[in-house]
């Protein structure tokens, strides 16, 4: 295992060495590295969003026994590119009497929030755009900016349906964020750190989903459900509610602005699945069984970034499967579910987790 596929930490080191030799000035080197990282991240985010749109259609096609995109490119892989071109060429309409500034700002807010948050996720031992000692808190904080975008979009559109969608979004996303965060905290008490890198490192003995007895799986499910709600996906897609609110908060958006909301949703799905994979499923940590050296060596054959990406994508597929199976909840049922069931359960989980950690009752305590 000596090449760069397994040891991705060599890539940043090599780039730094190259830039230092080229530019000399360490501040300049840092600046170029920042620009490079931002560009790479932007490229990755766009590519992820585009490919997820395609994946979603394919999953839907399989669930619903139809073809999905099949014409543009092999198995329709160029379909989203074609869609993108089409969306770009559409007229970019701003409704009369809309609050123009906020109306134009809203899609940017949504997109930027998810884009920035992805920079903190560790892909491999040393493949992470920003390493931050309270990374998780920062990601949760920056993630909430997305709801601001949706609220702004609905409010500024000058449309009652959009307004209803925005009000629902405010109630929904803020409520479910609480459960999601508490579920994450239940695992943080085990991991003992807010740094993504350390959270992954703490799972060398086993992933938290089963290392924390019962609490791990319960917290994982709570986070999963709450994050579906945060992404406004079925059964919690009340914000769009196309059969009730026509399209909810983005009814009035056309062309590239609509595309930005759309792509932000997909990046957001990938983001919450990445967080879930990192905190509950060991991030880039391969699947290891204590004592089974042969098996562990086999697992190590798969490079860490592939482990991470595989886990995140598996969760993304679950999101999509749920979307094409479930009907939508009603607004009051959704709120009742969160405040009367999910959040109390999350608090209980947190309490139990704290007791377990204090007593040291969890599997393979380091």
């Amino acid at each position, binding site marked *: 295992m000596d090449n760069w596929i397994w040891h991705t930490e060599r890539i940043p080191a090599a780039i730094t060495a190259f830039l230092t030799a080229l530019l000399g000035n360490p501040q300049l080197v840092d600046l170029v590295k920042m620009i490079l990282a931002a560009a790479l991240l932007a490229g990755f985010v766009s590519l992820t969003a585009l490919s997820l749109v395609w994946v979603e259609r394919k999953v*839907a096609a399989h*669930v*619903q*026994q*139809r073809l999905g995109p099949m014409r543009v490119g092999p198995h329709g892989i160029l379909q989203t590119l074609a869609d993108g071109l089409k969306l770009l060429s559409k007229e970019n309409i701003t409704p009369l009497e809309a609050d123009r500034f906020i109306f134009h700002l809203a899609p940017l807010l949504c997109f930027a929030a998810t884009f920035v948050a992805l920079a903190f996720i560790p892909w491999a031992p040393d493949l992470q755009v920003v390493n931050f000692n309270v990374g998780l808190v920062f990601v949760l904080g920056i993630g909430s900016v997305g709801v601001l975008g949706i609220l702004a979009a609905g409010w500024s559109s000058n449309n*009652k*349906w959009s307004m*209803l969608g925005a*009000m*629902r979004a405010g109630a929904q996303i803020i409520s479910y964020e609480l459960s999601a965060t508490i579920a994450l905290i239940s695992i943080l008490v085990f991991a003992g750190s807010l740094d993504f890198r350390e959270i992954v490192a703490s799972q060398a003995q086993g992933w938290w989903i089963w290392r924390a007895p019962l609490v791990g799986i319960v917290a994982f499910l709570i986070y999963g459900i709450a994050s579906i709600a945060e992404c406004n996906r*079925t*059964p919690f*897609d*009340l914000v769009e*509610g*196309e*059969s*009730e*609110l*026509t399209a909810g908060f983005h009814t009035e958006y056309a062309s590239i602005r609509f595309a930005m909301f759309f792509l932000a949703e997909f990046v957001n799905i990938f983001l919450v699945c990445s967080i879930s994979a990192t905190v509950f499923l060991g991030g880039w940590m391969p699947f290891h069984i204590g004592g089974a050296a042969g098996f562990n060596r086999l697992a190590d054959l798969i490079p860490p970034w592939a482990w991470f990406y595989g886990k995140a994508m598996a969760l993304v597929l679950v999101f999509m499967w749920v979307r*094409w*199976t*479930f*009907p*939508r*909840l*009603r*607004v*009051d*049922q959704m709120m009742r579910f969160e405040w009367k069931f999910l959040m109390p359960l999350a608090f209980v989980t947190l309490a139990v987790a704290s007791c377990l950690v204090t007593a040291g009752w969890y599997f393979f305590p380091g």
Partner: protein
Amino acid sequence: MELLKAFKTADVPGTEAPMAYEDYFVNMGPQHPSTHGVLRLVLKLAGETVLGVTPVLGYVHRGVEKMGEAMTVVQFTHLTDRLDYLSAHMNNWGWALAVEEALGIEVPERAQHIRVIMAELTRMASHQLWWGVLGMDLGAFTPFLYGFRDRERINDIFEKTCGARLTMNYIRPGGVVQDVDEDFAKDVRAFLEYFAPCITEYEELLGGNLVFQERTKGIGVLSADLARSLGVTGPTARASGVDYDVRRARPYGIYPQLAFRVPVMSAGDCWARYQVRIDEMRESLGIVRQALESMPEGPVRAKLPAIVKIPKGHWLSRVEAARGEIAFYLQGDGGEKPWRVKVRSPNFSNLAALPYISKGHRVADIVAILSTLDVVIPCIDR
């Protein structure tokens, strides 16, 4: 709009508290994904709570009844299947019955059997579409495509028989337009075989889902008394405990010779309406099977005079369409054209229940209620 003015926020349970918001009006439709066509509902809302609904009709009004008075009775058959296009065969049949009664025509036995098979296949096709659309209205897109997948098979049978897939125009005064396709019996048997397990799949995919049950149980409760007083018929009325089915109450065709059950529920909510229609699909399977097995050989159309003249007098025919009782009133003055044509549409009466049963529910419930009332707008506007 008058109806809406009568509603006060304080009338609606759960909203008595002083309001920090204003009541407002929202147009649901005429272009809205869940109004199933060009229906406009004016909603009066307090937040998401519905204080009142007023359906505004007439966006697809074509003057069908008046047109019926300007053409011969055979020509008018063509317009009947364009009323409720999901009950095309039953509508044709209803009109044919009125004409046959007026002219005293005896319909051949084989045609009677074909009519029943076609009508029940139509009922299943209509309920399949309704089931799919109900899923989609509640945010589940997959049932929609499953419903269409199965409906295709019925449409294929229709296409082989008469060349059309939606506006069939196959049942005519005197019988049916031509004999069935030679593969007909085989195709129908294959469909019966295929569709029986599909109903179970429907029940598991949608009915078995907790979210779906939460969204439908106790929503839009229509009492039996209200249903009767509004003239609500069909599965919608039967879900409220009104045990009325034209096929049994005023038998026509060969229905008296067939054994079938009329599903009746008592709750009157969206869930009951869902259950009744699912059961009806099962019953229709049995009816088709019986009619197919007892279908005799022979002619499929009685001889009609070259020029059909409607004698003086008036006739009313009723049939059980997929959405309830559709009645055709025919009045003749001895000429070739009817003197008066009037259609009693089940959709119109069923929609009349909406303002009464949606008060106090949420916007999302209006979608569910409207979907389980299963209205087809062109039949309302005519």
